[in-house]
């Protein structure tokens, strides 16, 4: 057992309102710079939809992630020998049109325009060339456009959803969508790291944050192609690749990442997960339908004495172990079995987790009408008993999260529904009858667990949502620089100079 610690984020999609406050917080903090205009380290997508960059999940086109073959797994982009032969050839790289041409407006015209018979207006211009531009795409172009035949219909996760249901999803009576906020997944088996010919990308030992060493980056951009989530971006001005840094300077000082801290829906949780690094290879090479189960298996129980002992042997201090025991992410992922990574089948072992969204109502259109005449005593249980009629098809969620495995998603949704129905009957009807208890049991949960899930879902304080370990930067600074006081208050290491353009 080789125990390591990881900082993970959990997104409770049932609570996301799609406000994009997270994206704006991140952009203002990190990517409000020349060359970084089009980078959205955090972005929010409407699903079904095509996402950002457009159609990023189409791996036949972008060739991101890993592929299983007879030797084990290999980058889908190219095998190692091929990588050397094709160093100057990277056809799967997304182009400007797959993102968008960043634009701004000539705001100064509002003040300086010469006298005219019309009131002045600020015309849109390209943020790259400064010339007037016709705006034809953006980082959130298909916002709220589920049901669209030009955007949402191309969402690859709709594969396997019946033609009839897809048709209905394009009608106003049945249109349905959820929001999907995304950051870098700080994977355990990161394709970006594996693809970099310069060895410039690394995963930090203490908390698993994946970083690009800007001094080493030589602009090969193999990481951009290899990341199946398209979460490495190339800065056209500095000639270096950049990505989400999980706000490590904030985490090191006990603050949540800016996206999580600013989240209006309070959907985000942060906490430590302990995992067994010896099993990464085993987990990444699993058969398709076991990907998620294996990943869960390598996440360790922070209360298990053997795990604690092995963690200490690996230099993980008590503060981190304590923090792992309080971790809300651990509870949702491992104890309650309610969370899944995005696209487990990409085999990068993504370490950010999602609780899938519940549908509001059962919805089947019969003869053009949505049925609302369900007998009152059955209303509460209707969706629970007929998940196949959920407005957002289970198949869709399964394609998005669990590599098509519907059972995984069904179990989670059943548990979420059990919480909802149980609490509703308790507070509105004032009774927990046998039917309710039977439902609780069939959802594989208990009233005690329901209460705990309910509290952490709806009533957590900020200290319960974000549980931070002590980073002890002073110890690291001492080890590297000798005198800890000389570097007091520092976060991270090195990189105090702007990067020079690579040779």
């Amino acid at each position: 057992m080789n125990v390591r610690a990881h900082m993970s984020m959990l997104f409770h999609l049932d609570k996301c309102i799609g406000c994009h406050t997270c994206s704006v917080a991140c952009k203002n903090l990190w990517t409000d710079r020349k060359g970084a205009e089009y980078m959205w380290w955090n972005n929010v997508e409407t699903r079904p939809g095509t996402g950002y960059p457009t159609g990023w999940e189409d791996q036949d086109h972008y060739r991101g992630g890993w592929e299983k073959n007879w030797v084990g797994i290999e980058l889908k982009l190219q095998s190692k020998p091929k990588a050397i032969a094709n160093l100057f050839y990277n056809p799967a790289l997304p182009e400007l049109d797959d993102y968008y041409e960043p634009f701004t407006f000539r705001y100064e015209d509002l003040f300086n325009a010469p006298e005219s018979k019309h009131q002045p207006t600020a015309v849109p211009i390209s943020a790259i060339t400064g010339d007037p531009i016709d705006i034809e795409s953006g980082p959130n172009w298909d916002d709220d456009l589920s049901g669209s035949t030009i955007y949402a219909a191309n969402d690859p996760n709709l594969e396997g959803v019946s033609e009839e249901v897809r048709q209905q999803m394009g009608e106003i009576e049945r249109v349905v969508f959820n929001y999907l906020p995304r950051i870098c997944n700080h994977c355990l088996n990161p394709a970006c790291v594996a693809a970099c010919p310069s060895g410039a990308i690394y995963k930090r030992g203490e908390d698993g944050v994946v970083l690009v060493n800007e001094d080493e980056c030589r602009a090969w951009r193999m990481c951009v192609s290899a990341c199946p989530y398209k979460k490495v971006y190339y800065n056209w001005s500095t000639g270096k690749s950049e990505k989400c840094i999980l706000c490590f300077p904030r985490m090191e000082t006990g603050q949540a990442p800016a996206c999580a801290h600013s989240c209006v829906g309070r959907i985000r949780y942060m906490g430590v997960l302990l995992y067994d690094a010896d099993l990464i290879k085993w987990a990444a090479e699993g058969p398709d339908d076991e990907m998620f189960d294996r990943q869960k298996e390598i996440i360790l129980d922070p209360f298990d004495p053997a795990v604690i002992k092995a963690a200490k042997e690996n230099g993980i201090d008590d503060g981190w172990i304590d923090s792992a025991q309080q971790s809300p992410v651990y509870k949702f992922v491992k104890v309650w079995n309610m969370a899944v990574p995005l696209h487990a089948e990409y085999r990068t072992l993504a370490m950010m987790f999602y609780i899938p969204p519940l549908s509001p109502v059962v919805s089947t259109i019969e003869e053009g009408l949505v049925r609302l005449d369900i007998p009152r005593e059955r209303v509460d249980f209707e969706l629970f008993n007929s998940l196949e009629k959920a407005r957002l098809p289970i198949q869709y969620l399964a394609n998005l999260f669990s590599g098509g495995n519907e059972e995984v998603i069904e179990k989670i949704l059943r548990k979420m529904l059990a919480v909802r129905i149980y609490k509703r009957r308790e507070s509105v009807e004032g009774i927990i009858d046998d039917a309710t208890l039977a439902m609780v049991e069939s959802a594989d949960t208990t009233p005690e667990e329901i209460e705990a899930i309910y509290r952490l879902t709806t009533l957590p304080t900020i200290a319960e949502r974000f549980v931070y370990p002590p980073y002890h930067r002073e110890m690291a600074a001492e080890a590297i620089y000798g005198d800890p006081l000389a570097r007091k208050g520092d976060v991270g290491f090195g990189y105090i100079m702007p990067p020079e353009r690579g040779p």
Partner: protein
Amino acid sequence: MTHLSDGQRDTRIRFSDLVAQPRRVLTTPTWSAVINKGRAYSPFTLNVEELVPWRTLTGRQHFYLDHENYLEWGEHLPTYKPRPDHTMLSETEISANEAQGRLLNYITPHGKWSIHSTYSENIRMKTLSRGGYPVWLNDKEAAEMDIKDNDWVELFNDNGVFVQRCITSARIPRGTVFVYHATERTVGIPISPLRQKRAGMNNSITRTRLKPVLMSGGYGQFTYSFNYWGPTGVNRDTFVYVRKIDKPSY
């Protein structure tokens, strides 16, 4: 209810604090939320937790209003009301012969990203919302009008004109056109090809009308008080002609 001000009596706010940001301190006994200790505003918590009767005729929440005026206008119960006939408004008669377009019900709901007109024309919000103030049309109806997603459209009636690019979407009901309120008239507003003037903002094509039931009074909660109860300017909806245009100039 004096306990609501416990621990807050020695609060001080300096002028420099107010310059830095708005401050919220006391729970007021006349508003409806308890906001002590930074608690988020949630309506009616004061009524529920402190057993303060609702400020209505009966002291309860009203769903049904038996005021004569409400009964007469059919507004006593919040139920479905069909859209009015455009001839009742007389805001499209002159424009009817001006150009070809389809007559649609124009509504201007609250936006996703702004409270009314709060600074939505900054580069962040414009980048996230297609770089303009999109006009939302039903996708099938747009196809019938030969309008494609992101085409320029012109909305016009006897009140004014609005020119922006459009979004075609399944979630908009037929017969309806949406523009989220409230747009600014500063960023990327072209010249209207029809009227040859700088196009307007979302309220350039609506007109303020008084809603008669809001003039009712002398009845429990219907008692005039400034910014609390009284006739409001109803300027959200009307009818407009919608037509596709070529890329306009600025």
